Structure formats: C-alpha cells, structure tokens
C-alpha cells in the first residue's frame, strides 16, 4: 500500500468522520422537536391534552357513562404559592363541557410569574381531554400576596377508551419569573403547548 495514497485517504476519511460528528451533534438537538412530536402523537407524558379544535368532537353527551376526573396540584419547589383545586374530583359525562376552578395565592411579598404545566394520566386518556379555557395556556403574573380564582373549561370526548374510568389532570406550578423577565422584550413569552 503506497504511503502517500493511504495517508491521503486517511485525511479524507477523517474529514468525513468529522462531518458525522457534526451531524450527530445536530442530531442531539434534533431529538428535542422529535421528542415533542412523539409525545404529541402518543400522548406520552400527557402532553397532548389539546384545545377543542377538532370538528368531530361536538358536544354529544354520553350520559350513560360516568368518568371520574381527579385534580392534582403541585407547586414546583413547594414554597411560592398555595395552589389547590376547588374540588378534588368531579364525576363527568363524556362529551359535556365542565368548568372547574383552581385557587392559587402568591405567598411571597414580591411579584412572581407562574406557569402551570398540565399532565394527564393515564396517557391513553390524554388526547381525549380537551380544554377550551385554562390558566395553563398563559403565564400567570401574581402581584405580591395576590390570590387568583382560575377556571379550567374542559370536556372528555366520547372516544375515551372504554377501560378508563378515572382520569387524573395534574398541574404543576413553576416559578418562571426569571424566564418571563428574559423574554420581556420579545412578543410572546415561552409558553408550553397545552
């Protein structure tokens, strides 16, 4: 094997492999939207509890079926707010719109911005829970000591799998004051899909 040609090939090969390295670095970042898409598709992490958009999800009440919807509230880090659902659980009929209220109160003596992140369990129910109104759609600014009474308007569509008799809707409140300040200049603050 001639010396010069093998070292030339080696150098070309090295650059090709370096290109692979660059691609794989990009692939790491590409996993972010990919993961979002997969979650949306499968309902993984209860991420696709969507807004009421689909035309086929009309109000068509299935009054024979009763499903229990439980509400779970958590404050990330635990101290900033008190946060709870007005009722811990309600019985619903698929296809009917319900409004429930959540109460949050800022325990700090300074302004904070909160962002509630929803999650639905079991994951197979996630895509059948639709919200027309939710405090989680937007960041929620709180003045020092302010309390808020916040509505969530939702329905379970009749296509909810038959084996599901209990659905848990969980909200975790995150303190995003720093993020909101950083995004202050921009048009739209970061907000999670909900």
């Amino acid at each position, binding site marked *: 094997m001639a010396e010069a040609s093998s070292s030339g090939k080696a150098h070309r090969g090295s650059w090709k492999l370096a290109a692979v*390295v660059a691609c*794989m670095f990009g692939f790491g970042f590409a996993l972010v939207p990919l993961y979002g898409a997969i979650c949306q598709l499968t309902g*993984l992490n209860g991420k696709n509890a969507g807004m009421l958009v689909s035309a086929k999800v009309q109000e068509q009440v299935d009054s024979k079926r009763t499903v229990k919807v439980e509400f779970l509230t958590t404050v990330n880090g635990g101290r900033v707010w008190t946060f709870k659902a007005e009722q811990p659980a309600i019985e619903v009929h698929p296809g009917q719109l319900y409004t429930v209220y959540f109460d949050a109160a800022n325990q700090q003596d300074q302004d904070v911005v909160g962002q509630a992140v929803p999650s639905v369990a079991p994951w197979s129910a996630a895509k059948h829970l639709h919200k027309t109104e939710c405090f989680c759609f937007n960041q929620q600014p709180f003045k020092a000591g302010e309390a808020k009474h916040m509505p969530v308007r939702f329905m379970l569509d009749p296509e909810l799998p038959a084996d599901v008799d209990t659905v848990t809707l969980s909200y975790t409140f*995150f303190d995003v004051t720093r993020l909101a300040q950083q995004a202050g200049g921009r048009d739209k603050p970061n907000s999670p899909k909900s």
Partner: protein
Amino acid sequence: MAQAQDAHDHSHDHDHDHAHGPEKGIMRWIKTTNHKDLGTLYLWFSATMFFIGGLMSLAIRAELWQPGMQYMDPELFNQFTTVHALVMIFGGVMPGFVGLANWMVPMMIGAPDLALPRVNNWGFWILPFAFTLLLSTFFLPGGAPAGGWTIYPPLVLQTGNSFPLLIFAIHLMGVSSITGAINVVVTILNMRAPGMTLLKMPLFAWSWLITAYLLIATMPVLAGAVTMLLTDKYFGTSFFNAGGGGDPVLFEHVFWFFGHPEVYILILPSFGVISTIIPTFARKPLFGYASMVYAMASIAFLSFIVWAHHMFTVGIPLAGELFFMFSTMLIAVPTGVKVFNWVATMWRGSMTFETPMLFAIAFVFLFSIGGFSGLMLALAPVDFQYHNTYFVVAHFHYVLVPGAVFGIIAAVYYWIPKWTGVMYNETLGKLHFWLSAIFINVLFFPQHFLGLAGMPRRIPDYAVQFTDFNQISTIGAFFFFASQFIFFYNILRCVLWRKGLQPAPARVWEGAHGLEWTVPSPAPYHTFEEPPTGIDAETPWVAH
C-alpha cells in the same frame, strides 16, 4: 499535519537513525506524536485516574461501613459518588483502552503509527486539562457536582459554581475521545498491511473499530445534551425546564441515547483483549472468528435501540416498555455467542494459566454474572423493584470492574513484556490475580442482596438491617484497592527497576500469534516503517 508527515517521510531516509529516537526529557512526552509514547501516556493517565477514583470509592465505602453519618456530610458523599463515576468512566476505563489501542492497533495491523499522529498528541493532552477542571471543583465554594454522573436536570441545574466546569470538562473529554476514535478508524481502514483484509484482522483491532464508530456516533450527542443543560442554566432556554415548555424526561432520553452505547464503548475493547489472550494460552485458534466480529457488530447496533431500559420507571407506554425490554434481552444473544466462543476456544486446549490468562478466565466468568444481572434488570416488570437500588450498582460494577478493568489488567500483563522488554514477576502477578478475583466478589456480590432487599443507591446512610452486607462490601473494597499495589509494583519493576530481570523474547508467549510478536521486545521506537510481508493468506491474524 504537514509537520508530522514531514517527520514521517524523513524517517524513511535514515532507516532507524538515532536522530529519530525519542527526544530527551519532558519535552519528549509533551511533543511526542509517536503512538507508543502516547499509548504509554494514556495508560499512565488512566492509572492515575483509577487511583483517584479508587480513593473516592474508598471514602464512599468507609462512610457506608455502618449506618449513620461517620466521616462526611451527605453533600460530600454525593460529590464522591458523582465524580467517582465520571473519573472512572471517562478518566480510567476509556483512556486505558485508548492507550492500548495506541500501542497495539498499529503494531497488530502492521502500520508505522496512527494515521493522524499530531491529532493523537492533542487528543491526549486535552485530558489532563479536562480532569483538572473536573477535580478542581472539589475546592470551589459549593463543592463538586453532586447530582450523579447521569447529570439529570433539574437536580444537576442546582449545582453551584462547579456546573460550568463540569460541562466544559465533559466537552473536553468528548473532544478527546472523538479525535481518538477518528484516528483509530482511519488507521484501521487505510493502513493495514497488504493482505490483511478486514475479516482477517486481529479481534482487538476489530473491537476498537466498532468502539470507535460508537464513540463517533454518541459522544457528540452527549456534547449536545450538556450544551443544552448549559444554556438552560445560563441562557434562559427551556430544553429541560417544564416551566418554560421543556421536559426533563427529554434529557433522560438524550442522555441514554449516548449512555447505552457508552457502556459498550467501555466493554467492547475488553472483548477484543480477551479474544486475543484466550487463544494464546489455550494454544488453539479462536473459535468462531467471524461470529465474534458479527456478534460485536450486532451488540453495537442493538446498543442504539435499548436506551429506555434505563428509564422504565419514568413512565413510558406499555408498548415502549415491551419494545425496550425485548430489544435489551436480545443483546444476550450476541453476548452469549461471545461467551460460548471463548469457552469453546478453551475446550480441549492445552491451557496454561499465566496471569493474563487468569484474568481473562475471571473476566469470562464474572462478566457473565454481570450479564445475567443485566438480564434481570432488563425485565420491565421487575425493574420497578430493582431500579435505583444497590442491585443496579452491583450489576454495572460487575460488568465494569471484572469486565472492563480486568480486561485492561489482562492486557497490561499480556503485552508489558513487549512494551518494556522484560518479564513481569509471575508469582506477584498470580498473587495480584487471586486477591483481586476474591475481593472483587467480596466487594460487589453482597450488593446484589442489598439491592434486592431494597437499599437505594446514592445514599450515605441506610437502615440498620443492611449493615452486615455493607460491612462485607467495605472490607472487599479496601482489600481490592490494596491488592492493586502489587500490580503497580509489578509494573514499576518492569519499567524502572529492571536490573536482573529476565529479558523477554520477541514472541513472549509461545502460543501468541500476530504481528506485534514479530518485532523485538521491547518494541523499537518505530515499527513497521515498511509494511510487513508474507502474511498468511488464510489466517493473517495468525502471523508467523
């Protein structure tokens, strides 16, 4: 590159000229582009890191000697578990194998050096800086990273001043391994001796070719993940911040997409070493050469589609649990092929039990134990019980210490006569082996029981009923660590205190085959400047 090339061409003019021996003094080591020098540097670096990481594990085991807090606060304990893992994986095992690749791959395939000698030099000299960064965090306010080597957010984002140092250290380690991997690939693909086709290459070279591809494919993904952590903490992004629309579970996916191939990066070169040593001392050709290559390739492929078995408890759909469970169990098939082939190679061989062979046999046996506990962990339903317990700790230490580390030790015993030109002390080697083989089991076997009984990992304190097994484990740890000094002394004898030692012949082991045994011992500074000829067309990895 041009410089290295010049130096290289130049060396052809003066065959084995004195001007091209090693430079004198410290600058030899700083400026060297010689694969043997760099291999030596890598191996000493690895030894240093094993020592430092080992000291941390002793601190951990000392704290776990009995329930309650003895010697350190929980923060320091967590720093030790985190940095112990990073140091052992990225500082001990990986540079150890890169050192072996540096020394042996060119000599095994009949190449004069690696394809990119200058890059090789840079790749090594990045490492001391990376680990200085990482280890210096112990002296920062707030201490070293303590969130576990898996650096899961949001916990790791609470790391104090040491966080950016951790990230940049990981970046540097990544750059070092990627350059090393590219170097190995282009060397193996372009510089093999005439007649040595890929499927006639020594298995150690094969194991490294596959490992290098794994490194090239996954280290950049880790670099991406830690970059996202960095921007999440300092630049207001929300890749993993649920409050900003991200998802911390995403990090686990990205991390383990790197992390699972990484565990094969740590073990495949060991497979190559064992596949070299067992035929030598069984005095038989390796059973099923081609199946060994295909088994390694299948393991490498499967390693990309099993990552979520590390996160069964995080909440994945049933179909996902099943897929990752079965794909994980599938890895047992090629691994089983390898273990079968090693045993079949020994079957009816005329075996002798020199130290490298002893370590190789212990590898086959103990690595299989680690493999079996891995199969247990692969079962999604029972993993909910084992997850984050000492059972996991026992499992991965069985595959890493009697697996990867015994592989490195076996390789050092096997090739050190070739490196230094003198024989190590066989009696001390055997003593080192028996102490290591016994105490590694005293150290890690009880941890299976602890895990099954429910003792969680990464805690400095535990319920009192776990005391007995923890004490056995701690005794094992201290004796295992102490017995490594026999190894250290044996190496130093060959390297420094060589007077009166038995000189090693070119073919150190009568059953050894391969091109590295055709050059004198110690191997000259430059070997195979002219490619070797007369390679057996049938079995060229068995050079005569």
